């Protein structure tokens, strides 16, 4: 557990606006600082940019699919790792935003970049719903395991409800909800372009768009977590009573963090629907709800970099296992989860990065 380091007050006043926020790219709440770290980051992004040149279209589309999930994982990382509230129900916001994207795009079509408006609205809906649930929980002073129970109940309620919307009476405008079989037929993300819109079906173009979003989201979260907001979140995680005595309204901070996590899960959900052009109630079920927990727990929840890397690693590993049969993959997932909790409670990737960092420092000395 990292002790809370408050940012040094003497250097803060000199920086304002954009410069201040850029300086928050590194700080006490995120791993990695200095030119060496950023060189690695730039190299990683360059490698990701040149990846489509070496791989075929199917593999690239697959990588884009991995990116879709990282937002939900990073959101859970903020809520669980930084704020200390274990949410089992990120899939509720995922599914809600996914359905919202489908309903909106089916009704307003995909002309003039309307799909992006739908994406925005879906994410906002996920965020607002999360704020509502967060208000309900944190202003009711619910904590610990009960946060998990409430969020799990929410996602299961949504799943049960959506699963019974099979009849023709369940429609919103032109969009049939279709019950257990799920909704399909919505357009993918579309970029308006002179001489024909570009439809972002699974493939290289979508890959680049998603890569850009992942990088932006990652850097944005780094800045936010090193800002006073992130410091307060960590203070609440370490000791809620102390944070409260220091004068922070911890209910507000927890609610906001939960809303952010919900919006990010919603982003994943809407992108998932746009990626595959379908969404089913089982995306909010018990197994689906377990997956984000697995990614974040195995990767490491205490650091956004570890969460991102861990999520990508686990999804890639999971998919390559699924080739041998998905039931074996789930057994391995479960075993990995138990192993992580027992042996490296901070997460495999987090521990590995920490070890490497220490080794690196020793060499430099």
């Amino acid at each position, binding site marked *: 557990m990292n002790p809370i380091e408050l940012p040094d007050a003497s250097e803060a006043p000199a920086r304002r606006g954009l410069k201040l926020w850029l300086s928050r790219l590194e700080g006490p709440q995120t791993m990695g600082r200095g030119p060496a770290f950023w060189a690695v980051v730039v190299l990683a992004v360059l490698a990701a940019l040149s990846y489509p040149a070496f791989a075929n279209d199917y593999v690239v589309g697959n990588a884009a699919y991995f990116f879709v999930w990282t937002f939900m994982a990073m959101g859970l990382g903020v809520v669980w790792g930084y704020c200390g509230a*274990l949410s089992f129900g990120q899939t509720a916001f995922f599914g809600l935003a996914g359905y919202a994207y489908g309903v909106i795009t089916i009704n307003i079509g995909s002309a003039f970049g309307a799909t992006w408006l739908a994406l925005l609205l879906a994410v906002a809906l996920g965020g607002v719903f999360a704020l509502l649930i967060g208000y*309900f*929980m944190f202003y*009711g*002073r*619910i904590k*610990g*395991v*009960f946060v*998990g*129970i*409430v969020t*799990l*109940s*929410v996602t*299961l*309620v949504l799943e*049960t*409800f959506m*699963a*019974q919307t099979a009849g023709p009476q369940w429609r919103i405008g032109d969009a049939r909800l279709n019950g257990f079989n799920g909704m399909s037929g919505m357009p993918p993300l579309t970029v308006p372009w002179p001489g024909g819109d570009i439809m972002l079906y699974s493939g290289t173009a979508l890959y680049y768009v998603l890569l850009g979003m992942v990088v932006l989201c990652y850097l944005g979260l780094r800045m936010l977590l090193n800002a006073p907001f992130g410091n307060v979140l960590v203070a609440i995680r370490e000791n809620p009573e102390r944070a409260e005595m220091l004068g922070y309204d911890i209910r507000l901070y927890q609610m906001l963090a939960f809303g952010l996590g919900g919006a990010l899960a919603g982003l994943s959900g809407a992108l998932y629907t746009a990626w595959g052009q379908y969404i089913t109630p089982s995306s909010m079920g*018990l197994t689906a709800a*377990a997956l984000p*927990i697995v990614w974040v*727990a195995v990767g490491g929840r205490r650091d956004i970099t570890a969460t991102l890397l861990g999520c990508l690693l686990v999804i890639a590993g999971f998919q390559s296992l699924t080739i041998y049969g998905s*039931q*074996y993959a*789930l*057994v391995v*997932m*479960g*075993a*990995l*989860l*138990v192993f992580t*909790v*027992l042996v490296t*409670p901070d997460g495999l990737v987090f521990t590995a990065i920490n070890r490497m960092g220490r080794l690196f420092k020793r060499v430099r000395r």
Partner: protein
Amino acid sequence: MEFFPASFSIFYQFGNAFAFLVISCAGLAVIFGMMGIINLAHGEFIMCGAYVTASTARAGLPLPLAIACGALTAALVGMVLERTVIRHLYHRPLDSIIATWGISLIATQAVLILLGPSMSGTGTPLGSTLVGERSYSIYRLVLFASAVGLLGGLYLLFYRTRFGVIARATIQRPEMARALGVDTRRVYGLTFGLGAGLAGLAGGLYAPTMTMVPTMGATFIVESFVTVVVGGADIFLGAAPAAAILAVIKAALTAWYGQLFGQIGLLVAVIVVIRVMPGGLSAFIKRWQR
């Protein structure tokens, strides 16, 4: 329409829901109330009990003995798991949820791989009886009686035996109990085994009424969670009245709007109850008693 058949029908619906909630939540309630651990593998202990019961019953054992076999097997599995995994997580309740979730994933999938997607069960025994012009399953009435018996038995166990006294002492003041020479680790192990065994018993009792699939635990787990969370830490002051209240909600919603709304009503109830009384019914009742 005569009064008796109508009221019997209502009692039957309520009793059915009540029995299901009490029997399925008992194991979870013991483990949560006594140890503060939310056991997400609860459904898999139930599945274990049901599978063992069904297979021993088909091998020719009389049903009550087969149910006992199922409960014992689940208890043994629970004690082994406590020794290997849960024991290390007593001070990290959030991590214990995740670990038990991992165990539940492993168990469900392993059973799916080893025993296939379904297993033939045993038929529901005892037939049915006619009250008024509708017929009712006698076994369901037996289940209601077992739920009441189970609560009575647990009360006797925790308040009238040496094990019960030591277990309650360990829960209330672990350091003091240890100082007085109680082997608290053993008590925790036995308590977890008891909880797992009760889950196995639930599986055994419901095995004749259900289809045996590896995911059958999931049908129990939501209901049992709801009951335990609404009830709070104490089984007798919490889970039992919670089961009664929730049974009314569920039976009424199911009768009027269908099974799905019965379940949704339960889940909404848990969210509202947690918001209004975070400690559950038992904390509410205890405060009110003072």
